[in-house]
């Protein structure tokens, strides 16, 4: 996968290890846990959107499916959180597979609207299936993760758990990107029909990358459920699907690093925008609009280009 990426991964791992030492404050760690959770989703979305060129406006649903499967199984059926997380991955991956086969025959706006509709339907089910989900008011007391007899209870514990998984997911994703499969994904983005004629089973790879990105989102959802220990439908609606796309777009779609930067920016920024209270939605929309108009490759690629020009 190239020396640059290995070096970046090592630097990232170092920073992750060191950060809690510098930040005694648990509030920042708490924010960083969310950055990690959202990064898991945006890395998958970057594979789907940035590399393969397939849009999804419904990924909050996969995040929610992971969270709810994990939360419901562990809280109401006494399943261990780890097993519940696995179950979440299988349930979400299965649903993603069922939806992917017909949806990915669609292109552009049609695919966007199909995924949007799917996301909305899942959101409505979260609200309506109250016997399982507690409806709009949700349910709490979701158990936290255990490692043997050790209960992960503080933000620091979750910080390390989440970011270890981010590193693993990054490694997995970079391996895919720099493989025969990754090349096939990019060729689909460049010209789907041409790729097909040149011998790439485009339908298969589109489904694979869609399911993989859903699985990442499900993993993030389970971590979220066992971290917050409370679930209601609000965080899994259309709005969050858009936030996810925004994160990927702002950071730079065609790079998993950009996707992480986007997740970090758009998680930390609203924390500061809170001072502006309700104006945050205006600032948010403006940032998204301006970046898409003037830096459609995202901040990451924009900055890289600037650095290259300087040299």
């Amino acid at each position, binding site marked *: 996968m190239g020396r640059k990426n290995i070096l970046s991964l090592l630097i990232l791992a170092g920073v992750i290890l060191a950060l809690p030492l510098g930040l005694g404050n648990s509030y920042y760690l708490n924010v960083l846990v969310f950055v990690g959770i959202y990064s898991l989703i945006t890395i998958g979305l970057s594979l789907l959107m940035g590399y393969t060129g397939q849009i999804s406006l419904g990924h909050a649903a996969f995040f929610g499916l992971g969270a709810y499967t994990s939360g419901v199984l562990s809280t109401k059926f006494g399943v261990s959180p780890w097993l519940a997380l696995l179950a979440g991955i299988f349930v979400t991956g299965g649903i993603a597979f069922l939806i992917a086969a017909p949806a990915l025959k*669609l292109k*552009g706006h*049609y695919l966007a609207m199909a995924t949007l*509709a799917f996301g909305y339907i899942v959101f409505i*089910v979260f609200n*309506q299936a109250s016997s399982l989900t507690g409806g709009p008011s949700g349910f709490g007391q979701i158990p936290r993760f255990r490692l043997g007899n050790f209960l992960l209870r503080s933000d620091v514990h979750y910080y390390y758990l989440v970011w270890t998984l981010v590193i693993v997911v990054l490694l997995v994703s970079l391996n895919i990107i720099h493989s025969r499969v990754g090349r096939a994904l990019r060729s689909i983005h460049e010209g789907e029909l041409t790729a097909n004629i040149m011998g790439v089973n485009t339908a298969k790879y589109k489904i694979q990358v869609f399911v993989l990105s859903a699985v990442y989102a499900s993993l993030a959802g389970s971590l979220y459920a066992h971290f917050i220990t409370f679930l209601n439908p609000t965080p899994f609606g259309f709005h969050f699907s858009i936030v996810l796309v925004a994160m990927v777009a702002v950071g730079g779609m065609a790079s998993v690093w950009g996707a992480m930067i986007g997740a970090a920016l758009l998680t930390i920024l609203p924390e500061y925008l809170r001072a502006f209270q*309700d104006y945050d939605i205006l600032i948010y929309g403006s940032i998204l609009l301006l970046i898409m*108009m003037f830096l459609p490759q995202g901040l990451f690629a924009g900055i890289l280009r600037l650095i290259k020009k300087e040299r």
Partner: protein
Amino acid sequence: MSLGDQLLQYLFTGITIGAIYGMVALGFNIIYSATGIINLAQGEFVMLGGMMMVYLTAIIKLPMVVSFFLSILIVTAIGAAFERAAIHPLKSPSVITLIIITVAASILFKGGAMFAWGKHTVSLSPFSGEEPISVLGATILPQTLWILGIMAATVALLILFFGFTLTGKAMRACAANRTAASLVGINVKTMVLLSFALSAGIGATAGIIITPIALMNYDRGTMLAVKGFSVAVLGGLGSNVGAVVAGFIIGIMESLGAGFISSGYKDAIALVVLLLVLFLKPSGLLGSRERAEFKKF
């Protein structure tokens, strides 16, 4: 009420809401035909229309008729300004870029409405009286007649515009083949601007006439857009007759579903229809398959 009366009542409700969905779908069609863009901020035009009307009548205290036309005019101008500011400057944008830009615009419109008018739900008095008219054991609100009348007028005006004016014909030419249209001297960029203005105006009209029945809130746009898009796709994207017919179909399905199945899942009906149409027959009821195939993005 007997089952028959109930059925009739749901039918009336469905036709009312279906007319609104149909108008939102017309807005989608007009922009899509001229540009190939699905404007995800379409629902926001509807919301802005309703909110603006409430503002002009309740706060500025303008007369109803003046407010009606002024609201449409202002939202039309907003639509045109949006096109000039955010769509016009783009040079060969990708579909993903376009989708995110219209989504960003919808966030901005939503935020702007919240900023200007607050988060609370607003109401508007009906255009003429609130006394329900009873028809065959069911009742119709006078506003329903206004809605159907104004929708019919809108459709008639569109038919006249596209069929008999030079500008309308030029827009149709753009829809059929943009390159050819520009070759015969049609200013395609102006047509794109017009299409945004026109569909903002139609959206605003829909928003104004539905508010007396359904109330309005800064947050209503997205759901209206999704419903309107479902209708546009069911009718066959680009087909205006299809939009009107499909509007009634989905409106009636929704109101029957809410009445007989579950009101909680009411909003899912249009979405399930949308998914089924997209998966089974993306060209819709009245769109031709070839057109859907060739209009690749």
